[in-house]
């Protein structure tokens, strides 16, 4: 029996590896996801078989099955119910649950020692306490960090009908505090080896780890949130691997460290797309208070009719969606605009997708796909930038930093970030609430160019107005 169990775990580890590999390529990604799910099924079945046929068997079927079914139903329900716009928050939330599960398993093992008084000795004690401590550190940190990240992505929380914005706060002195907190957890882990049943260390590690997750995410602005969620994802994998050391299970170690390492690489890839280093993201809060440039210039806003007249007979329009489109959820109105233009003037419509537009990489693709925009019209930044000089109108919807020409100058917070060359278009139309700066806190020259027309207002309302105006030409 033991051999079969090992083969089951080996099979599931192999499925995870191929699944992750295939998830990285557009054509094979859905299959990769299915392979991962299959790997998980094999792992769960193998474990249940192992529990049933080795040792004393499954003790309480109702509890084991009940937990599995309950979790599956809740998870499935949440995944199916969620609006496409709420996707990033949900990924953050699931991530927090994963971290918490690993930490709870570690806690449960230690509680067992405390209750039974049956602590391991020697090498086993050291390994168990170190792994349990690290699993707790990473797991609880992932939970609180992910929950905060979720509320940051949402923008706030409703308490008794009042909307409270999620704060972004990170003075420079907070950085040494993070280091001190981390070191104190490590010290407590070492001390807990001496006294494994001392509950002070146990709860101390949990408490500080929870605080650590919060202070780590608190200073980070919304634009960097995807990077943080990706990093937390990597951490939750590491937590699972440490849990594997406690219970001596190979598939936990393999799958956990796979996710830990590949998640870290993905984090670096995301950082690179924004031209930021991971250390900058974590320790230099971006566009915090006081750093924002004051606005000294003004620009007269246009109205929908004026923009519609200019759009009359346009041959080629490139739509540049950003954060604002996600917030106002106007992707359907955008698609409608594209339909009207195509029908009325035979206009060629394309969408320019910046790698970090929105709240998550790929966020724009998901939103526009939801509105039935054909995939071929979504063009990545590098490919579309050459097309702007020959395009009649660039329609920028709620994007700011990703179109700011200041990024080319090599100075300021945006320096060197690749941008969409919307300023190269013959006319630029920008839908935005105000002239205010984006996350980077840098004034955008694009707004003040002579060929730029500003439509001030909510994305959804403005797009609806524009659609009506274009129809009436």
């Amino acid at each position, binding site marked *: 029996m033991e051999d079969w169990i090992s083969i089951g775990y080996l099979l599931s580890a192999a499925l995870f590896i191929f699944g992750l590999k295939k998830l990285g390529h557009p054509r094979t990604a859905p299959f990769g996801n299915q392979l991962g799910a299959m790997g998980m099924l094999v792992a769960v079945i193998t474990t249940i078989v192992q529990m049933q046929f080795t040792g004393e068997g499954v003790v309480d079927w109702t509890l084991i099955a009940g*937990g599995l079914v309950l979790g599956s139903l809740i998870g499935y329900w949440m995944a*199916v119910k969620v609006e496409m716009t709420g996707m990033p928050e949900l*990924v953050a939330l699931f991530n927090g649950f994963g971290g918490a599960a690993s930490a709870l398993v570690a806690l449960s093992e230690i*509680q*067992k020692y405390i209750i039974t008084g049956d602590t391991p000795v020697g090498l086993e004690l050291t390994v168990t306490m170190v792994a349990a401590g690290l699993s707790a550190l990473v797991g609880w940190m992932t939970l609180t960090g992910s929950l905060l990240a979720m509320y940051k992505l949402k923008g706030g929380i409703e308490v008794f009908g009042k909307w409270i914005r999620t704060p972004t706060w990170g003075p420079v002195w907070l950085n040494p505090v993070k280091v001190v907190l981390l070191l104190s957890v490590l010290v407590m882990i070492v001390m807990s080896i001496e006294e494994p049943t001392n509950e002070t260390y146990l709860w101390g590690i949990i408490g500080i780890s929870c605080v650590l997750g919060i202070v780590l995410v608190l200073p980070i602005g919304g634009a960097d949130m995807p990077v943080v969620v990706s990093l937390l994802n990597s951490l939750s994998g590491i937590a699972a691997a440490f849990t594997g*050391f*406690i219970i001596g299970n190979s598939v936990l170690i393999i799958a956990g460290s*796979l*996710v830990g390492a590949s998640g870290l690489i993905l984090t670096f890839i995301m950082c690179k797309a924004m031209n930021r280093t991971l250390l900058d993201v974590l320790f230099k809060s971006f566009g915090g208070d006081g750093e924002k440039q004051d606005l000294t210039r003004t620009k007269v806003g246009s109205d929908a009719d004026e923009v519609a007249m200019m759009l009359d007979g346009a041959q080629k329009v490139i739509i540049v969606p950003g954060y604002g489109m996600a917030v106002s959820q106007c992707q359907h109105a955008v698609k409608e605009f594209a339909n009207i233009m195509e029908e009325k003037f035979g206009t060629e419509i394309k969408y320019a997708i910046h790698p970090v537009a929105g709240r998550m990489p790929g966020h724009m693709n998901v939103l526009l796909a939801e509105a039935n925009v054909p995939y071929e019209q*979504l063009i990545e930044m590098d490919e579309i930038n050459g097309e702007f000089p020959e395009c009649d109108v660039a329609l920028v919807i709620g994007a700011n930093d990703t179109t700011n020409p200041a990024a080319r100058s090599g100075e300021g917070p945006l320096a060197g970030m690749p941008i969409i060359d919307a300023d190269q278009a013959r006319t630029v139309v920008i839908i935005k609430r105000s002239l205010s700066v984006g996350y980077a806190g840098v004034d955008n020259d694009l707004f003040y160019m002579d060929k730029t027309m500003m439509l001030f207002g909510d994305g959804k309302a403005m797009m609806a107005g524009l659609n009506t105006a274009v129809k009436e030409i």
Partner: protein
Amino acid sequence: MEPEFLIANITLFLLAIFLGFELITKVPATLHTPLMSGANAISGISIIGALIGANVAFDGGQTTLSGLLAFVAVVLAMINVVGGFAVTNRMLNMIAGKKRGGA
């Protein structure tokens, strides 16, 4: 725990980390979120530990804190796993599915 067992586990840990680094090379930006979400579902592998933990705990007749914690861990890990794979599937159907259908 035998030292050999620990060394074997550490070897697995390091090899899997190297493998993870090599596995992800160039990923188009479109797939960053689904890849993150899919990897996140795989990190729900702690379900295995939670199951074993829940079983052993009740085995000892310790239906107190230890077992309760493991049971909560089973539920949370399962939400992570099922929800994670389901939501990734939904995203991929929107991104990649359209491509095949439209072409």
